[in-house]
């Protein structure tokens, strides 16, 4: 057991830390469009410095970073409170799918503009009737004159209105079992047949969208991984690509913990024994999130697959963030009702943490069935 960084990891981190100190773009400006432009510039800045597509192999313009470097990268970004780059979904999901399953032509066409941020990507998986049960999705793609004609509805599509490409999973075989009739497409968003409608969440921000797709056209060369293989293509890249996210989310929670301890001090409740117990419990759980993430990374490096503890960080993170913002609201008292208080925003926004990217209930199902070997519900 050795939890220290190797000299090369250490120097990587120091280099990144000083680069961030000099190049931090500042907070997002107010206004959705201005904030997005800011993040797009940040994406370009990361690309120019060789930090975009960090986990991607070098031959595709990435850095070929090790898992440890990926985790350190996430930690340092969170520690510096750097904004997210604009093309997160392209870098974390779209690019890796093309790298693993795409043809040489597809790689040539799509990969570089993801990294530069010139082409933004969004994800068209969920539908109004298909959330956790993704494989039940109904959006239909029919082949006609060498191209695919797509009709259906998608939801929770982050950045759809800013996107050039959509990672779309659609049903291409109505008769096959539900996991086998799906195909993974890259759909051009720039067509009349695709209508984007913003979906306002409880914070009143339109962070997500609905997509209404009425006979949209997708050329055959935009199928990734072969017709009928959509389910496998969609899920295979998820696990390992997320490996570094646990450490990053722990670092984010550590910053949030700093904020809440500062709030307790500012409000003069830092000697209150109940508040102290709650701060301590959060401090412990934030640390355990970090440790579980690093233990998970060690397991992946040793065995090639995440161990049991690798499935826990997302669940832990959601709970910690929700509990932490509830503590902040308790400390604020009446002021927590104020709409413009940043903690009020976080209190509300964090309600989605146990839903987005896999609900806590689905994570528990996965742990129960695949880790503990309990019988399936179905």
């Amino acid at each position, binding site marked *: 057991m050795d*939890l220290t960084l190797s000299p090369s990891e250490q120097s990587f981190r120091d280099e990144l830390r000083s680069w961030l100190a000099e190049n931090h773009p500042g907070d997002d400006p107010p206004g959705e469009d201005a904030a997005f432009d800011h993040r797009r510039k940040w994406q370009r800045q990361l690309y120019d410095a060789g930090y975009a597509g960090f986990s991607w192999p070098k031959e595709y313009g990435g850095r070929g970073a090790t898992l440890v470097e990926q985790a350190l990268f996430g930690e340092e970004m969170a520690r510096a409170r750097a904004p997210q780059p604009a093309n997160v979904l392209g870098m974390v999901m779209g690019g890796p799918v093309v790298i693993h399953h795409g043809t040489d032509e597809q790689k040539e066409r799509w990969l570089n503009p993801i990294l530069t941020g010139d082409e933004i990507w969004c994800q068209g998986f969920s539908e109004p009737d298909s959330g956790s049960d993704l494989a039940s999705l109904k959006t239909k793609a029919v082949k006609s004159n060498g191209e695919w004609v797509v009709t259906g509805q998608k939801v929770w599509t982050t950045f759809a209105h800013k996107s050039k490409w959509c990672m779309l999973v659609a049903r291409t075989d109505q008769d096959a079992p539900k996991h086998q009739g799906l195909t993974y497409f890259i759909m051009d968003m720039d067509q009349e047949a695709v209508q984007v409608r913003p979906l306002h969440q409880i914070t009143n921000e339109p962070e997500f969208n609905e997509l209404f797709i009425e006979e949209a056209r997708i050329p055959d060369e935009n199928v990734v991984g072969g017709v009928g293989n959509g389910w496998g293509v969609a899920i295979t890249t998820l696990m390992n690509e997320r490996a570094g996210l646990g450490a990053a989310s722990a670092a984010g929670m550590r910053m949030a913990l700093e904020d809440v301890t500062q709030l307790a001090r500012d409000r003069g409740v830092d000697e209150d024994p109940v508040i102290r117990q709650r701060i*301590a419990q959060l401090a412990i759980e934030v640390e355990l999130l970090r440790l579980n993430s690093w233990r998970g990374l060690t397991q992946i490096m040793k065995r090639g697959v995440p161990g049991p503890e690798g499935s826990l960080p997302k669940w832990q993170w959601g709970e910690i963030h929700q509990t932490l913002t509830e503590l902040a609201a308790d400390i604020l008292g009446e002021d927590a009702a104020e709409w413009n208080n940043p903690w009020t925003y976080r209190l509300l926004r964090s309600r989605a943490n146990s839903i987005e990217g896999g609900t806590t209930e689905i994570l528990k199902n996965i742990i129960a069935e695949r880790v503990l070997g309990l019988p399936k519900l179905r």
Partner: protein
Amino acid sequence: MNFDFTDDQQAIKRTANELLAARFKSERVRELAEAEKYDEDAWKEMCELGWAGIFIEEEHGGQGLGVVELVILMEELGYALAPVPFLSNAAAGLALQFAGTDEQKERWLPGIASGEARGTVGMVRDGEARLVPDADSAEVIVLIGFDGSTSVVEAGAAEIEPFETMDRTRRFAHVRADGGEPLGGDCFAAGDRIATALAAETVGVAQKAMEMAVEYARERKQFGRPIGSYQAVSHRCAQMLLEVEGSRSGAYYAAWCADSEPESLPAAASGAKAYSSDAGWRVCGSSLQVHGGIGFTWEHDLHFFLKRAKTNAMLFGSAREHRERVASLALAKSETVAA
């Protein structure tokens, strides 16, 4: 960065697991618990294997390994619920090795390392240590006050009053003693390592209780299907895994800090002890709920684990006390960051 055991450490874990599984089958643990006895033969065997002195320096008769190796043994001892005076003796060894004077080490560590002259540790509140494991069979008792005062006393000079706790797999006593001589060093250096070892033992206890729940949930059928296929039960089991793995990460990390990064030990040790204290009880209680009525019976083994988990939670500082320490460290730390 490697958050896993080395091959040598894996070998220690495997050996401990196999030996303890062979010596402490469930009937044997029950027999010992009901007779309120320890398995002296198994204890001798462990001592011959060098377990008692695993972390004690070689010059004092130990193996010269670290707290990580001790924690590996503690987890397996908890998993087997082994009725042996291991924890008490290890606690005394940790106190003397990490806070004792040279003289105290020379005098007491060899007996602790060989298991022939055992020690124990008690936490003193208002002049009395209320929950001291194995004081009646120890030669030396290290008393640590919550105010940071310490004394090393010969058992013969102490007032020892054994009493029954809910945990029948372990002996406890109230201890009072005047005099004795203080430890030479920092009692927190000792206390943090003891808390770490105990947290690791609770990890093993909780792991076993979780496995019992999962096995039962796979086999027990109601309404025509295994109860583990119902989410009310399976999600309870998933929660157990979350808490067991969190406790495990915390205990392993604290052990590593003890050996390799002592400046991080205070928060790590108190965090591990606080979390495992709550998690141990919750996991065992949740396992009882999965078992239903049978889990509430004396004839089922689960209650031995439940009671050990709760008693461990009380021992060497409660979750509340350790959390208060974490709060002090967290609030102090962010002050320095702000400054």
